[in-house]
């Protein structure tokens, strides 16, 4: 475990050194993150012009959710997207050989090796927003609530990773999965809103099938003190099962890999 942490830290530092060369694009990303936040807040300001509460959420509470969304989006963009976008390419070009040969888990290497540091700014912006909007929304800042939110957020990100990684693993057979992964970006849009905005089937879909609720709604609810504690148990259990499934599927898929290189 410590070995893996050290390995990750090394590659993260390598990524940082590479990206430090491109300061302008870093700055642009920060500006874009700010604009995204401003537009998200504006959208909710426009929606709440008509009513004080939607699905049990006030504007102040939704602002906390916007913060959680920025954190989740930032973490996924920092740690996962740069890797998951690239995997189909490794398989197509035969670059996968290099990862299979190394004496560590190939799933670890292809999933976490690259780090896009500019995206981490989004997570910081989100954190600042929660601290700012917290008091008005009734956030208590108890250690238990913060721990619950962190655990649920982690589970949410693990679940999204599992779903995405599962799809990408199909590239071993399909070679071109085209842009199947852009579907995730689309569904993640729904995570901008509390799941309680949606009804029946759609809510169930966003909670269990495409579990964006665990990444944003439930952590926000933990902070606000309105969480149904059963979701904490469900989140941990689902995340564990999902992670194990990706591991099994990946190991199975790797055995079907026929290299594209010589």
């Amino acid at each position, binding site marked *: 475990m410590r070995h893996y942490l050290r390995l990750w830290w090394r590659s993260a530092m390598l990524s940082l050194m590479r990206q430090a060369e491109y300061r302008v*694009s870093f700055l*642009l990303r920060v*500006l*874009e993150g700010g*604009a*995204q936040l401003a*537009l998200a807040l*504006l*959208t909710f300001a*426009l*929606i709440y*012009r*008509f*009513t004080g*509460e*939607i*699905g049990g959420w006030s504007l102040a509470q939704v602002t906390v959710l916007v913060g959680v969304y920025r954190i989740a989006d930032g973490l996924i963009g920092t740690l996962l997207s740069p890797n998951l976008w690239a995997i189909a390419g490794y398989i197509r070009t035969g670059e996968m050989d290099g990862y299979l040969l190394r004496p560590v888990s190939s799933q670890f290497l292809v999933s976490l090796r690259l780090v896009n540091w500019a995206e981490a700014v989004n997570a910081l912006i989100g954190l600042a927003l929660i601290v700012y909007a917290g008091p008005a929304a009734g956030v208590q800042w108890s250690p238990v609530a913060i721990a619950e939110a962190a655990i649920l957020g982690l589970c949410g990100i693990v679940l999204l990773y599992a779903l995405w990684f599962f799809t990408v693993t199909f590239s071993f057979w399909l070679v*071109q999965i*085209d*842009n*199947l992964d*852009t*579907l995730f*970006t*689309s*569904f993640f*849009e*729904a995570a901008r*809103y509390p799941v309680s*905005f*949606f*009804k029946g089937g*759609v809510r169930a879909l966003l909670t269990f099938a495409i579990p964006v609720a665990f990444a944003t709604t439930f952590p926000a609810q933990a902070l606000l003190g309105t969480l149904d504690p059963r979701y904490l148990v469900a989140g941990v259990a689902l995340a564990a099962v999902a992670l194990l499934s990706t591991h099994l599927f990946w190991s199975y898929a790797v055995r079907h890999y026929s290299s594209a290189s010589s």
Partner: protein
Amino acid sequence: MKLRYLWQMTSMNVMSTLEYRGAFFIFMLNTVITPVISLLVWLAVSEQGVPLPYNRSQFVTYYLLLSVLSMLTGTWLATFLAEDIRRGGLSPWLLRPAPFIVHYIGNNIGEKVVKLPLLLPLVGLAALAFRRDLHLPSDPRAWALFALSAPLAAAIAFLIDVIIGSLAFWLQDVEGLVRVKVLVGSFLAGRFVPLALFPPAVMPFLEAQPFRYTLSFPLELLTGQLSAQATVRGLLWQIGYCVGLWLCYRLLWHFGLKAYQAPGS
């Protein structure tokens, strides 16, 4: 003469797009999902029983047609055009008998020809899901105005992208500009919040900015909120933007080609 080139470029693009129909199917799925999410949110708001400028069926009409119209008025050329200018892909075109832009118009129309039959069944499914609140306008005049306004909207969106891409004659990287345009442009085009639901104080601004005429205005014609006077005014804005942006494009290219230095042999 030029029309023949356009026809050839379009059919060529239809063929090459068909190769990637799987990818385009996913694109179309995305095109439907995002408006449907917004629609569900607004239906949740209307559930609160508060008076809104739109009723349920207007929201359904707005967002379902938005998914079709946003495909029909979609553009993606700015990045490609900038790349062609920066890396010299433009050079061979300067010798050909058709202006470079025809290539991009052909690509735009060609992809849309393939996208439409992929998109319509998906919109049909969405319509089925919302059938309880689905009441499309029956006034043929509204549809005629829509049919007039939609191509103008596509032309404005296209020209805005051409202008941003053309800045590559002078700028190293237009990607940041493209992303800002996508972000701010979709917001001001009414993609998330219909412009009719903005506070009255900002209406004069919303009416004057170009993005309204790339998406929102044709939809407003169908949700039936506009007076005859506002309709005529909007159409005039659309024509004005088309002409103005086209002149702007010609001007940029006039000076741009002088500044253009192609790398390569």
